[in-house]
Structures are given as C-alpha cells and as structure tokens.
C-alpha cells in the first residue's frame, strides 16, 4: 500500500492551541480560513493583525502574527495608522457586529472611503456574544436578545444594517462580499473570498471587505446544529450571500 498523504491539517499561521470559542461557534472556522489565506500567500511573518473587542479579542492567542489590540470599533483607524507606517506589510482587522456596525460605523465607512489598502473580516452573528447576547445592529426583526426581550422592534430599533451593501456604495471599496460557513460548500466559497480579500490588498487594489455570517449558539439559546440551521433559514434570506462590489482587475 502506498503511503497516505495528509490532505488537510491546521494552517501554519494558526497556533496549535484550544480556543475559548463555544462549541459550534464559527469564529474558529473563520480564523482557519484567514490563516489559510496567510499561508497561501506566505505572508504570516509580514502580517500585522488588528484585534478588536468582543469574542474576537483573543486574536493574538490564535494567529501566529504580530498583533495590535484596538479599542472597541476603532480597529480600522488603528489599522490605517499601521498601514500608513508600513505600506508594504499586509494589515487586516477582524471585527464582530457590535464592533464594526455599531460603535465603529464611522471608522469602517471612512476607512473604506479613503480606500485604505486593508482587509477587513467582519463576523456577523446578529448578537453581541462576549457581553452576553445583547441586540446587535444586525439582529433580525423580532429576534429576542437580552436587550430586546420581546424581539427586535423595528419601530424602536430600526432595521438590521447590511454592511456589505453599504460599503459597496463607496468609491474607495475595491471588494465587498458576503459569505457564510454553514455548509462545506459555503466554507470553501468563504475561503476563496477571504483569499481574494487579501489578494486585493497585496495587489494594492484598495479596501477589501468580507462579511461572514456565523453562529452564536450560546447566546441564541440553541445547540450548534440548530444554530447552524438558523444561518441558512433566517440569516441568509435577510443577508444574501454574494459579491456586492468587485472593482479589482
């Protein structure tokens, strides 16, 4: 019998440690896809990651790269500072829905608007995970959270915000895409999108944004499989997957 070949293993850029993420939380999957992209381009030792606040805060514990920790919502501004000092180094941010679409809306819009050559990974799980499941700007109408116990009321709280669409309207955005990781097919597509988002930066094309729909089983009050189904059944219909802007050559 010929020897077996390992065809799947942990990427080099991802540390060999157990994560703090809950069972079924898709941060882990998304971390792996980002690490895959860094491995693919061989940029691990040049990359600067900007950690944000939320379950994503432990970025430096999981990626084997240099990292700076930003205040809540400010990662795009911090990344701008780093990228302007090191224009030849890949710089990316990794942010959740509170960080990017609530407190950080100004920073993300203006960073995209300036066309900063950055890659932004936006994990949308329609809730504030780290702080215990409060309503997020992306929480769906009627979604019960710890701060919308009767369900998100459009009259009081407005509609969920669609970031991939919003940022696609800016000249400075070169690439804006929404993906999910709820099926193997979607995982592979997400991996491609993340890789392209890094390539956009490496080719100096401009601002690249990937919104990834993800689960938060703990705060949704579901088990991992139920949570994963919610992505397909409820989230994807509201937040359609697809490329919203591709101005890359």
């Amino acid at each position: 019998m010929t020897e077996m070949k390992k065809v799947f293993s942990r990427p080099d850029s991802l540390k060999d440690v157990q994560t703090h993420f809950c069972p079924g939380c898709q941060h882990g999957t998304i971390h792996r896809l980002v690490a895959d992209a860094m491995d693919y381009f061989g940029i691990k030792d040049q990359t600067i990651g900007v950690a944000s606040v939320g379950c994503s805060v432990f970025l430096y514990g999981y990626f084997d790269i240099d990292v700076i920790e930003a205040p809540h919502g400010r990662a795009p501004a911090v990344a701008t500072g780093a990228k302007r000092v090191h224009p030849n180094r890949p710089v990316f941010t990794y942010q959740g829905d509170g960080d990017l679409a609530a407190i950080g809306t100004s920073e993300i819009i203006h960073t995209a608007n300036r066309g900063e050559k950055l890659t932004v990974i936006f994990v949308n799980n329609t809730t504030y995970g780290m702080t215990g499941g409060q309503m997020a700007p992306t929480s769906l109408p009627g979604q019960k959270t710890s701060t919308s116990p009767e369900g998100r009321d459009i009259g009081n709280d407005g509609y969920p915000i669609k970031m991939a669409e919003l940022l696609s309207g800016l000249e400075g955005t070169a690439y804006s895409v929404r993906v999910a990781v709820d099926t193997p097919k979607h995982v592979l597509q997400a991996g491609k999108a993340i890789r392209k988002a890094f390539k956009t930066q490496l080719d100096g094309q401009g601002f690249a944004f990937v919104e990834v729909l993800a689960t938060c089983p703990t705060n949704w009050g579901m088990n991992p499989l139920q949570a994963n189904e919610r992505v397909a059944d409820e989230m994807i219909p509201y937040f359609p997957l697809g490329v919203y802007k591709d101005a890359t050559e």
Partner: protein
Amino acid sequence: MANKIVIDELRCKGCALCTIACPQKLIKMSKELNKQGFLPAVISEEDLERCTGCTLCAQMCPDVAIEVFKGGK
C-alpha cells in the same frame, strides 16, 4: 484503508457540525465525555473504510480538530 480522518478528541468540543458535513454521515458523537467535558465526534474503524478523504468534515470543524489523509491503494 485508503483514506482516513483523525479526530483530535481533546480539541473536539462536540459541536457535531462534522456530522452534517460528511456526505456519507460516517461521523457520530461519542457517548463518553472527553477530559474537557464534551462528547466528542468519533468515527468507527468500519466507517473509516468508506471514507473518501473529501475533507468536508475538516472544512466544517471550527476547532480544526480533524486531520485528513488520502491515498494508498
């Protein structure tokens, strides 16, 4: 066997996403707790025989707990 997966029992958090990823439903959830207190995913020797090494289980796994080996005739 031609292909195999190796599930790191201590990394696995028992989320079961791999069980829906496998096109042949070869992965099951153990009935015995691991040291972390989770019921990890397991695959029997018998089921391993039918593994095609497609890697879809590993792609779905949020904890990168699965390694996949292919080849050998």
